[in-house]
C-alpha cells in the first residue's frame, strides 16, 4: 500500500489506474446522443449533433482533469464549494436573469451560470464530507440529523423559489438517499417518510406556483388541457408506441419528421430513439444506463473512505434520478418537469455536470488508498 501525499503526484501512472469502464460507457452514451440529435434535426450535423460531440470531447477532458486531481482537494473544497453555490443561489434571488418566467440564471461577467446546477454536486460533496466527519454513532442523533437537514433544506428552498420544482426535488431525493446510505436508523427513516407524506398538501398549497400545480393536475387528468401540456405527453407516447418492437429505422421516424414532439433534441430525445429503434433500442438505452450505474456502484464499493463512497453514491443517485425522471416523464409516468436525459440530451450544462461528477467518482476511486482525516 503506497501512501501519496502529493496531490498531483504520478499523473502518468494515475491515468493507468483510472477505471476506464465508466468513461467508455459515458462515451458510448454520448455517441448515442450525437446520433439521436442528428436524427432529431433531420440529419443536419450543424444543428446540434456536432456541437454535442464537441461538448462531449471538451467535457471528457474536464472529467480527466477532475479525476486526476487528488481526492483530498475535493474533500477540502467540499464545504467551500457548497457555500459558494449557496451564495450564488442567494444571488439569483436578487440579481437573477429571468428566462421563460423563472429566474435560474446568474450573469457573471461574460458567462451565465445556473447555480442550481452547481448546487447538485455541491450538496453531495457537502453531505459526503459531513457524514465522513460525523462519527457513525451520531448519524441518527439530533445533531447529525439537524446538520444534514440544513445542508439539504437550504438549497432546496432557494431553488424552489426560482421556481424550479424539478431540481429542488432532485436535491431533496439525492440528499435523502445520502442520509439513508450514511446509515440513519430505520426509526428516523419511517418518521421522515411520514413527515414527508404529511407535508405534501402544505407544499401543494404554499410551495408551488400555479403553473406547477397545473402541470401536475394535467398529468393526473390529461383531458384538462388537450392542446397544451398534455399534447407533449400524448405526442411523446405516440412517438414511442408507434416505434413498436424494432422501430421505424434510423432517420425514419414520422412523428419526428412531422415535428409532433416538441423539444425532441433536449428533454424528449428518448422519443426519437424509441420511435426509430423501437422497444429493442429503448431497452438497449436503459441497459447502457444500468451498466453506467453499476460501474459507479462498483467504484464506490472499491473505496473505503466514507467521503469517497458517499460522494460516488450521491453523484450516482443524481445521475440515476435524472434518468428516472426524464424517462418517466417521456413515458407519461411523471409530470413534465424539464429534466434532461444525461449525456444524450442536447445541452452543455448537463454534459459538463455529468462528466464532472464522473471525474469526481474516478478521482475518489483512483485515490481510494489516500487517507482522509476522520474523527470518530
Amino acid at each position, binding site marked *: 500500500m503506497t501512501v501519496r501525499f502529493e496531490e498531483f503526484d504520478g499523473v502518468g501512472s494515475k491515468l493507468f489506474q483510472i477505471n476506464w469502464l465508466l468513461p467508455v460507457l459515458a462515451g458510448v452514451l454520448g455517441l448515442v446522443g450525437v446520433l439521436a440529435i442528428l436524427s432529431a434535426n433531420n440529419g443536419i450535423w450543424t444543428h446540434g449533433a456536432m456541437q454535442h460531440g464537441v461538448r462531449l470531447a471538451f467535457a471528457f477532458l474536464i472529467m480527466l482533469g477532475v479525476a486526476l486531481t487528488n481526492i483530498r482537494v475535493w474533500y477540502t473544497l467540499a464545504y467551500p464549494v457548497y457555500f459558494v453555490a449557496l451564495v450564488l443561489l442567494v444571488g439569483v434571488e436578487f440579481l437573477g436573469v429571468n428566462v421563460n418566467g423563472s429566474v435560474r440564471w446568474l450573469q457573471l461577467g461574460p458567462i451565465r451560470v445556473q447555480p442550481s446546477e452547481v448546487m447538485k454536486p455541491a450538496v453531495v460533496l457537502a453531505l459526503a464530507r459531513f457524514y465522513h466527519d460525523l462519527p*457513525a454513532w451520531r448519524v441518527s442523533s439530533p445533531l447529525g440529523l439537524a446538520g444534514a437537514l440544513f445542508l439539504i433544506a437550504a438549497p432546496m428552498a432557494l431553488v424552489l423559489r426560482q421556481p424550479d420544482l424539478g431540481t429542488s426535488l432532485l436535491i431533496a431525493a439525492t440528499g435523502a438517499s445520502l442520509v439513508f446510505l450514511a*446509515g440513519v436508523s430505520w426509526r428516523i427513516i419511517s418518521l421522515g417518510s411520514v413527515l414527508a407524506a404529511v407535508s405534501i398538501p402544505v407544499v401543494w398549497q404554499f410551495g408551488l406556483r400555479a403553473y406547477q400545480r397545473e402541470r401536475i393536475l394535467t398529468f393526473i387528468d390529461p383531458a384538462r388541457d388537450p392542446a397544451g401540456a398534455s399534447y407533449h405527453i400524448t405526442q411523446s407516447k*405516440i412517438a414511442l408506441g408507434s*416505434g413498436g*418492437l424494432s422501430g421505424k429505422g434510423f432517420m425514419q421516424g414520422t412523428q419526428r419528421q412531422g415535428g409532433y414532439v416538441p423539444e425532441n433534441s433536449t428533454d424528449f430525445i428518448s422519443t426519437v430513439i424509441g420511435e426509430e429503434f423501437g422497444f429493442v433500442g429503448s431497452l438497449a438505452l436503459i441497459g447502457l444506463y444500468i451498466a453506467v*450505474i453499476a460501474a459507479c456502484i462498483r467504484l464506490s464499493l472499491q473505496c473505503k473512505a466514507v467521503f469517497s463512497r458517499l460522494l460516488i*453514491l450521491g453523484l450516482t443517485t443524481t445521475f440515476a434520478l435524472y434518468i428516472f425522471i426524464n424517462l418517466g416523464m417521456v413515458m407519461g*409516468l411523471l409530470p413534465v418537469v424539464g429534466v434532461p436525459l444525461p449525456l444524450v440530451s442536447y445541452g452543455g450544462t448537463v454534459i459538463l455536470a455529468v462528466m464532472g461528477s464522473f471525474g469526481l467518482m474516478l478521482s475518489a476511486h483512483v485515490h481510494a488508498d489516500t487517507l482522509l482525516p476522520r474523527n470518530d
Partner: protein
Amino acid sequence: MNALSTDPNKKKPTAKSEALITRRTAALGVGGLGVFGILAGRLYQLQIEQSENYLALSEDNRFNFRTIVPSRGIIRDRYGEALAANTLNYQIELVPEQIDDLDLALGRLSNIVSLSDREIAQVKRDVSRKPGFVPVTAKDHMEWDDFAALNMRAHALPGITPRAGEGRSYPDDGLFSHVVGYVGKANDADVAEDDDPLLLQPGFRLGKTGVEQAADDRLRGKAGRLQIEVNARGRVVREWPGKSEKAVTGEDVYLTLDADLQRYAAEQFGEDAGGIAVMDVMTGELRTLLSMPLFDSNLFVSGLTQAYMDKLNNDEKRPQYNKVYSGGYPPASTYKMAVMLAALESGKIDPRQRIFCGGRVRLGNRLFHCWKRQGHGSVDLRYSLKQSCDTYYYEISQIIGVEAIADMARRLGLGQRHGVGIAGEQHGIVPDPAWKRERMGAGWHMGDTLNSSIGQGYVLTSPMQLAVMTARIANGRSAVSPTLFAGQDIAPFPDLDIDPDHLAIVQDAMWSVTQEPGGTAYRPNGTGLPGIDMAGKTGTAQVRGISLADRAAGLHKNDRLPWKYRDHSLFVAYAPYDAPRFAVGCVVEHGGSGSGRAAAIVRSVLGEALRRDGLGQQTQNATETDVL
C-alpha cells in the same frame, strides 16, 4: 493523520460503517433496479402491447385527406344545349409566407389588375387569420385580359399565382334564371342539415334555387379524396396519390325545355313583364317556362353588388319573381271554358239556349258589367266564348252554382300544384263556399259566384296552370300534368273524365275565338302557318276596381292609367286545332286587353313551337331550297 488511521479503537466502527454503507448501497441499488424495471415495463406496454394503437395515431397525425371538389353536372335543355355550365374562373392566389412585404406586393399587383380598397382589406384580413402557407384568394372572377396580363408578369411577383378554377355560369344572361336557379356558397343552415364534406370546401357551390337546388344531389357529384402528409403545423409535406379517390363528376340533368323556343318567347315579350308556359298536350313536357323580365343569375354566383340588388328589388316588374310558376293572376275570361264545361255537364244549360246581354246584370242592388258596355244582344254558348260575353256567364253561373264551376276548374288542373319539381310552385285559388269559409271566415254570396264565373274575384292561377288547363281541354282524354325534368318515369295520366261531346263544343268555341271573324282574337292565319288552325281564349284581368269617379274622369281607358293599375293581358291557346300538339298559357302583366299583347305573343310562340316541331313552313333555308 497517521495517528487517526492507526488508532486501533477507531478502526472497528469504520469497518462497521463501511459494511452498513455497503448494505444500504445494495438496498438502494435494488430499489433503482426496480425503478428501471418499471420503466422497462412501461416501455413494453407502450411499444409492444399498445403499439398498434399508437401506430394508428401516428398515421392519423401524419396523414390527412384533402377533399377534391368534383365538377358539377351540366343542366341541359332537351336538345343538349347547356343552360348551366362550368367555365373557368380566373383567380389570383397569394401565398403569404412567400411574400416579404404584403403592401408592396399588393401595390405591384394593383398596377396590373384593378384591386378595390375593399378587396385589399379583405386580403389583409385573410392573411392575418390564416397560417402563412395557406393560399389566400386575392381576386375572383377576373376578366381574361387581366388574367393574361398577370400571367405575363407572374414571374416578377413571387408568392402570387394566377389560377384557373371552375365556376358556374349561366349562358344567355339569365334566360333560364327562374327555372334553372343559381348556386352559392353553403351557409350554416345548409351545413347543419347536410353532412357531405363538400359543403365545407371553400370552392364548393351548392344549388340555392330552381333546378340547381332541386337536382342538387345529382348535379353535385361525389367528393374525391387526396391523401396528404402533413406536419405538426399543418403544412403539406407530400401527396400520396396511391391512396386517393378520384372525384366523381356530377350527373348532367336534362330538362324538357327547348332553349331556342324559350329565347324566342323572351324576344316576343320584349320589355313586358309576365310569364308564358308552352306544354306538350300529350306528354305534359314543358317546352318553355319563362318569366319576364329576366335577371342575370351569373351575378349571384360571382358576387352581387348592392346596386344591382337594389335595382332588382326596386324594379316594379319584379324580375326575381318567378311569375310563370309562382305567380297568381285572375284568369279572367280564360276561366270561362271551365264554366262552360261545368254548365254542359250539369245538363241545366242547352248550348243553343240564348241569353240576352244588355251590357250589365243586376244582382240585388249591385250591377255586374259586361266588358261590352252596349251589350252583345242575344248570345248562345258558342258566341258567348267567341265574344267573351260576361253577361252569359253571370247568368249561367247562377243556375249551375259555384261548386260545379270550382269542381270543373280543379279537374282542369287549376287550384293545385303539379309537382314539377322545383321550389316555389303555387296552388293558386279556385274559390268555393268551403274555401271562403275556411280562409276568410265569411259566407259565400251570389256576387262571388258572378265574379268567379268570369275568372275574377278570388280566382288566381299561374300561367303554367293555364297551360295545363288548355292542354287538358285540347287533349280531351287524359288529365295531363306538366313535367320539367326529361327522362323521368311518369305514371300514366289519369282519365280526364269529361264528356268528349262537351269538350268538342268548347274546343269549337275556342276555335271560333281565333279563327272566325268576330272572335276576340281573330287574325287570318293566326299561327303564321298555312293550314294550321289554333284555338284559344283571351282574358283581361282587372287589377283594380274602376270607381264611378274614375269613369267620370275618363280613367277607365286602360292605357291612360299608371302601369301598375293597368289590366293584365291573358291568352291561352293550343294548336294545331285538329291534332293538338302544344298548349300555351300566357300572362302579360298590365299588358291591357288579352286580345292584344298576350294573344300576339302566344300566336308567334305557338307558331314557332310548331315550326320547330316540324309542322308547317320550315326555316328560311328550307323555303329557299323549295324555290330552287
